[in-house]
């Protein structure tokens, strides 16, 4: 399983802050984003925006990364703190 977290506008668009999805060996984060967009048809379209960022186990990574079973994945828009 993968634990998926959503923040800010993605969390609001979906209406919940986390998800548990089946782990698919060899799937990149970009492919996972596509799978999540399909799963939540229409309510998570922004996850495939080119500006969407991703973290695996709290480390920001590129969407070409392939996660491993049990990872915590987070999708979010560009940060705006400070």
């Amino acid at each position: 399983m993968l634990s998926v977290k959503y923040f800010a506008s993605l969390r609001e668009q979906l209406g919940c802050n986390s998800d548990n999805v089946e782990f698919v060996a060899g799937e990149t984060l970009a492919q996972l984003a596509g799978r999540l967009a399909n799963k939540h048809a229409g309510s998570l379209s922004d996850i495939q925006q080119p500006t969407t960022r991703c973290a695996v186990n709290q480390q920001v990574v590129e969407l070409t990364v392939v996660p491993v079973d049990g990872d915590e994945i987070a999708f979010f828009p560009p940060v705006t703190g400070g």
Partner: protein
Amino acid sequence: MAMPSEPIFVSVQTHNFCLNEQQQALFKSCNANAEIGAVASFVGLVRAENNIMEAGSAHSGKLRALYIEHYPAMTEPVLRRLCEQVLEKWQLITCRVIHRVGTIPTGEQIVLVMVGAEHRAAAFAACECIMDHLKTSAPFWKKAIFEHDEHWVAAKQTDQAKVEQWSD
């Protein structure tokens, strides 16, 4: 140079902070007090002006507050790593970062960066360097709460350009 007992302090909190108390805490946390020749601090506040949104975006009424969301498991580790890197780069004696989350009304403080160094050049530069990196790498998101509606704030390209100036 004697090393301070706790050179780095990081806090993500809902409550406000007092600049004077933080400066006292900075000295207290640092047993190399006498080595400090310069303290520089930056405080970011919620501006009452509502030009926080991108030009052309529609919003309604005056800005009331900012709502700040974060990624709890990631935020403090990111800020701590940032402080460690800047402490080493600028040979700081101590540094502290406080960032508030939740709903913060206009006029209130959002963020504090305070550093102690031997000389002012390092203190000024380190303070700015921490802020520039915080704005582009720490997992915080701002939502602008107006009188009649609310909108997520978009990241600025100028912030990204600014942080790139620090890359060696």
